[in-house]
């Protein structure tokens, strides 16, 4: 099967800093691909390349097998690659339905009488929200009245509704409480069921493990490799994420401290 989006040997440099080195990644339809790594591992740089914010310095991108070079995020969007950024998801003072259709308003009428078809918009938004299990009184209420998790979910629902084939989620759960994160995770699963390829960026192994099919671990701009869920375990992933060696050496150090204390009562 051709991957929806494929990165081959991507590198990116910012001056003397090697942000990414030789990263390869495939995202298939109906698959959640978790991108894991500590701060500064290069996760953000990689998704910015995938979503067209800037091009890679080396390597190639393919969308459904065809080589592409994005000039803008709009171009990536037009090819079905939608990115939901944690801080750019929704405009709080605008109503849910106005947010949902911002930039892609359905219209009725012709010429100067062309107008925003709010009745249709309302119907679609209400249906889409129901599908993700968000019960709002009224889609005309301000987005600011929704919880953080609900806002993320609505942003994801919007991307899926507008035909996203690949959904890139930038730390959608990192600022959320446990229950709120569950709302978002449930919707990630729903998007996968609909055949969307999801790139899920997170710090949190528990969140990743709950929804992920494939895990790619980044560390200091390099890849530790890609693992399918059945080939690995949560503990293994956790260990790799924390930087396996560092954790092991920390353990040795702690043991030594404990031994020394035992010797000098």
């Amino acid at each position: 099967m051709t991957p929806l989006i494929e990165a081959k040997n991507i590198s990116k440099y910012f001056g003397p800093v090697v942000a990414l080195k030789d990263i390869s990644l495939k995202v298939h339809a109906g698959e959640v691909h978790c991108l894991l790594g500590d701060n500064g591992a290069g996760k953000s740089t990689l998704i910015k390349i995938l979503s067209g914010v800037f091009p890679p310095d080396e390597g190639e991108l393919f969308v459904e097998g065809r080589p592409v070079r994005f000039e803008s995020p709009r171009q990536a969007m037009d090819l079905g690659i939608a990115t939901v950024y944690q801080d750019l998801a929704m405009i709080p003072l605008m109503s849910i339905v106005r947010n949902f259709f911002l930039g892609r308003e359905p219209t009725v009428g012709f010429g100067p009488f062309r107008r925003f078809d709010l009745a249709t918009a309302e119907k679609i938004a209400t249906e889409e929200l129901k599908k993700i299990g968000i019960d709002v009184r009224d889609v005309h209420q301000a987005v600011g009245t929704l919880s953080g998790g609900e806002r993320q979910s609505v942003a994801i629902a919007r991307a899926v509704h507008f035909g996203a084939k690949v959904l890139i989620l930038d730390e959608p759960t990192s600022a959320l409480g446990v229950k709120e994160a569950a709302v978002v995770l449930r919707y990630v699963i729903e998007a996968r069921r609909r055949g969307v390829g999801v790139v899920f960026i997170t710090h949190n192994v528990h969140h990743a493990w709950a929804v992920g099919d494939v895990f790619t671990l980044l560390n200091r701009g390099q890849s530790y490799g890609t693992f399918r869920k059945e080939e690995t375990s949560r503990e293994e992933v956790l260990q790799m994420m924390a930087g396996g060696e560092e954790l092991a050496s920390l353990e040795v150090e702690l043991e030594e401290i404990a031994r020394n204390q035992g010797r000098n009562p």
Partner: protein
Amino acid sequence: MEHDTRLRKVSPVRALMARPEFGSLAGVILVFAFFAVVAGDRGFLSARGTLNYLEVAAQLGLLAASVSLLMIAGEFDLSVGSMIGAAGMAMAIPVAIWGWPMWAGIALAFLLAALVGYANGYLVMRTGLPSFIVTLASLFILRGATLGFTRMITSRTRVSGLHSYAQGDPLAALFSGDPLGIPISVWWWILITLLASFVLTKTPFGNWIFGVGGDARASHAVGVPVARVKIILFMATAMSAALLAVIQVLDTGSADVLRGELKELEAIAAAVIGGNLLTGGYGSVIGGSLGALLLGMVKQGIFFTGINTDWFKVFLGSLLLAAVLLNDLLRKKALEAPK
């Protein structure tokens, strides 16, 4: 989903209070009631008295509609007042001095306004400077240029005697007179308020106005042409100033370089009283128009009460402060998660 305890019926009163124009509507009713009681027998309630304050409100309301749209889009235009003076002269000088037909003078006034609006918008978008600063600069430049050119060409600061040129002019007829006994400015005010409100609430462009004012970066990310939206609104604002200038010149038969001074601040006051958020992303055209109605009523109402009109600005300032506090409170209520 009836079982969900978070779903409940909102009372119509609460729904009304959550609207941005609620504060100004309440204000209009209160102020009307006040003057009806205090000055009702001195002519405030008469047809003449009503037309009197409606005309004052209309001249401000013409501006307030587009100023509200621009404010919702997150920008200011402080050059509105200077634009009124400039557009008036751009119309009067060619007609009175160079012998142009009146319609050509009117067309020039609108063309100049479109250009100035475009320049304001382009500079704001291009430089990334706050529109407050850019249009403060155009406030001075426009007023100075109007004075300079007018004195250079006419060696005066006032051009008068224009009534005779307007006779039988096809375009001038659109901007003068009292159809059905109501001043033309009131008709334009109603027309523009309805049009601007329709654009804001019923069209995709209106949705973009809310979007660019709420969060320009997020709007850009979903494909809204942020610069185009704002530049169009700067042009609309300048052109509404030109409309007011044309109406005033045809009404008084003269143009004056100082005309329109401080109108930009009154229009902003009306927009803010009408519940438009100074930082953008929230508001209503109807609210801005009600704000203008409120100010017009107060301005003329004071006259009817017999209180010295010197006190008008004290009322204006107090009203503005009270309205902003009330609107702020109402908006916070509207944004509270329903419990």
